[in-house]
């Protein structure tokens, strides 16, 4: 944990601390104190699987005839499946998920979806993001509403960060809080060619004493920004992941998230996506690669967080806008479906399968039916993990699912 002294040393250099003596500017001191407080708030990391992940081949019902019959070329064979129990198993590419489960760090919530499923990517994703149907006004998302409900007096640090090149997910939108979309960690580094900029700004910016609200706000924000930059600079210079992350896009994003968490940012929501799950044709190799990327990245991330002592306070959730049709199509792929499993990863999940695998014989328009509303998963996270009342955020009270340790 960063002490105030070491923070100041990092920020403005040892000599500056000595020479400034007691005259360390107030605005920087405040930021320093804030940065040195123990940080034990829970964090949520969202991993969005865009395109519609094939849940039936992620958690495969390998013993069921209906499954093997519907998927003559794609079914996961009983001999290949990474067994969860005697009836269900992970796709063989999902070794990381299997190992997380063995470590009791993975919860598999089955049959998650919503009534009258929409099979448009955009529409269904919007429903997951906003908890609202098309007929309603959808200017904000469930996480955006959480951020608004959870606003503290000082909105200094970044309440949420979206990491990636794609458009910012609607889930993070709100009326009053802007969430930065960050393409790389560079956004959090002061490009200080002379190596003196930060020190000079600190010295000069703090000398105008003022009771002014707006100036005071910019001063303390600047203090936070310089401190974040220094912390991240230090973290990236010395950051040693507890594990070697795979060389995949998702793994590198999650590594960055781990680094940001470890740097002491007070951000509580991180959002990343993995695209490509729309496997209409020749699904087998593509889906295997995606599951390998997902499970490898998740496993490394959870392991790394534990190495750095953050394992107990970070929960990672992965979801997709829908699952895929039970029956494979003529192109050795699958079409848009409905219900699918949601994964929660972290030290404090209730491990294992939660809820039944949806029936393969009781279908709706060829798709397995949901039995757990996605908003129940959100409610569980909001009420029990982030510690806010879920009903106003979700537009109603939803029963939680037993996916977290009580």
């Amino acid at each position, binding site marked *: 944990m960063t002490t105030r002294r070491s923070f100041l040393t990092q920020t403005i250099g040892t000599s500056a601390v000595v020479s400034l003596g007691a005259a360390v500017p107030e605005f920087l001191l405040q930021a320093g104190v804030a940065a040195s407080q123990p940080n034990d708030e829970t964090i949520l990391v969202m991993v969005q699987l865009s395109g519609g992940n094939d849940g039936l081949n992620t958690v495969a019902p390998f013993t069921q005839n209906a499954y093997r019959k519907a998927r003559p070329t794609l079914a996961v064979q009983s001999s290949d499946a990474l067994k969860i129990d005697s009836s269900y198993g992970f796709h063989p590419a999902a070794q990381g998920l299997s190992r997380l489960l063995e470590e009791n760090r993975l919860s598999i919530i089955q049959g998650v979806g919503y009534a009258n499923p929409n099979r448009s990517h955009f529409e269904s994703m919007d429903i997951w993001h906003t908890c609202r149907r098309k007929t309603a006004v959808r200017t904000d998302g469930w996480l955006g509403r959480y951020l608004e409900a959870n606003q503290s007096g000082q909105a200094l640090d970044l309440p949420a960060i979206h990491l990636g090149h794609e458009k910012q997910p609607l889930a993070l939108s709100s009326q009053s809080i802007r969430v930065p979309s*960050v393409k790389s960690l560079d956004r*959090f580094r002061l*490009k200080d060619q002379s190596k*003196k900029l930060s020190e*000079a700004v600190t010295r*000069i*910016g703090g000398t*105008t004493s003022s009771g002014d*609200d707006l100036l005071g706000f*910019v001063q303390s924000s600047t203090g936070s920004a310089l401190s974040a930059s220094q912390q991240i600079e230090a973290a990236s210079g010395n950051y040693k992941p507890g594990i070697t992350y795979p060389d995949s896009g998702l793994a590198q994003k999650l590594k960055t998230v781990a680094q940001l968490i470890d740097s002491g940012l007070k951000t509580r929501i991180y959002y990343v996506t993995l695209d490509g799950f729309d496997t209409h044709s020749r699904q087998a190799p593509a889906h295997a690669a995606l599951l390998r990327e997902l499970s490898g990245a998740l496993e490394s991330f959870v392991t790394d967080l534990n190495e750095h002592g953050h394992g107990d306070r970070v929960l990672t959730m992965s979801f997709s806008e829908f699952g895929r049709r039970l029956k494979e199509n003529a192109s050795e792929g699958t079409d848009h479906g409905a219900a699918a499993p949601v994964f929660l990863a972290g030290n404090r999940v209730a491990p294992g399968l939660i809820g039944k695998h949806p029936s393969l014989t009781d279908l709706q328009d060829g798709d397995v039916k949901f039995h757990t509303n996605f908003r129940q998963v959100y409610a569980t996270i909001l009420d029990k993990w982030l510690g806010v009342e879920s009903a106003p955020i979700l537009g109603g009270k939803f029963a939680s699912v037993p996916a977290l340790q009580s």
Partner: protein
Amino acid sequence: MPEDIGAIDPNWAWSTFKPSTEQPWNRRLAAHLCRRAGFGATSRELNDLVKQSPAEIAHAFVENAKQASQRDPETDSLATAMLATGNSQNLAAWWLHRMLNSPWSGGEAASTSPLLEKLTLFWHGHFATGAEKVDDAEMMFTQNQLLRHHALGNFGAMTQEISRDPAMLIYLDSTTNRKAHPNENYAREVMELFCLGEGNYTEGDIQELARCFSGWEVRRKKFRFNKYQHDTGVKTILGKSGKFGGEEGVNVVLNQKALPRFIARKLIRFFVFDEPAAPEQLVEPLARLLRQSELRIGPVVERILASNLFYSQSTVGRKVRSPVELGIGLLRCLHGSTNLELVARGLEEIGQAVFYPPNVKGWDGGRTWINTSTLLGRSNLIGQLLRHETTRFAGNNLEMLAQQNGVSASDKLVAWLDEQLLAVPFDGTARAGLIDVVETATGNKSQRIAELIHTMSTVPQFHLA
């Protein structure tokens, strides 16, 4: 707070500012005017402006802007070139070019004015329309010209035209406004965000107004009225009933008493101070002026820019610079030029991509511009602009700029930059610190001045305008 805004006498506030020995008309105050009314001014422009009175200048600014707003937009060859690429991001560079190169002096030759561009930016945030959804640079350009044409003119005429603007219709889903399923999106925003503000209408009013717009469509990038999809029945909006079409429906909204107050309040926030919200007694005189001038914007802007309140302690340094004001402002004040596509991308990084407002509410402004990532981004962007290979100052470099203005000595240079760039002057200790920066920096003279400006613009005080 230097004074309680609630206690300000409205008569005093909007009366014409007359310089006095306590508050003389000087380069610093003129720089304040140019920062707010546009994107700053060069040192030479400030020298010209201090020879006139603030009231004369406000009048001239508004007149120049009006004249420029009536020029034929078709003759803009740079816009044509940018449009040929079909990319709205290139269009952003075109607009930044206008902001950067509009002269304060006006005159026959000037086809644009800084105030005109500033107001167009204001209306772009007000009638916010995002290029991502519209996905057509030409339509975004057409809308931009519409906003520019009406920027100082009649608000009612502008609202009528924007209601038929293809980019707006697409952005707010009016193209699917069928008789059987009127889309309420545009009708809602006309009342909530464009004209009245929340609390001045009911959900029922929105549904009825939406019926008026049924049959309004876009075909081949043009507005088209489809009479087969228009609901010809009687509508009741805000207490008025009739077989209203879209134009009549908008007129009902435009005649509401809440409208002039809503627009006046927003103009005060844009030109005067971010916070607190202006009290009713300060809004009312401007709302009255807007009503009396039949919703013309020019007179209200002129009144604001010439007022006691505008030059008072309650106003100077009481706004957070927007990203555009920050980036374009710095270049403009220092007679700079650079690759403006680079600037456009940089501004996007720090939260203001022109033509890409975050949502239909536009940019919230004020404190929402500032967070950890935007502050670091601001500093990094300015560092990049100052040192980029395509950047020129005074046609050459920073050393030349300093020489031309007779401020080669460090103390003079710091004082000169402070006067031009800062709303509230640095104190002696801060200035000494800045002099130390330029004297101890490494590299040639231009590089050392770049380090100085980079430091100045990373200091918290710089973000206030």
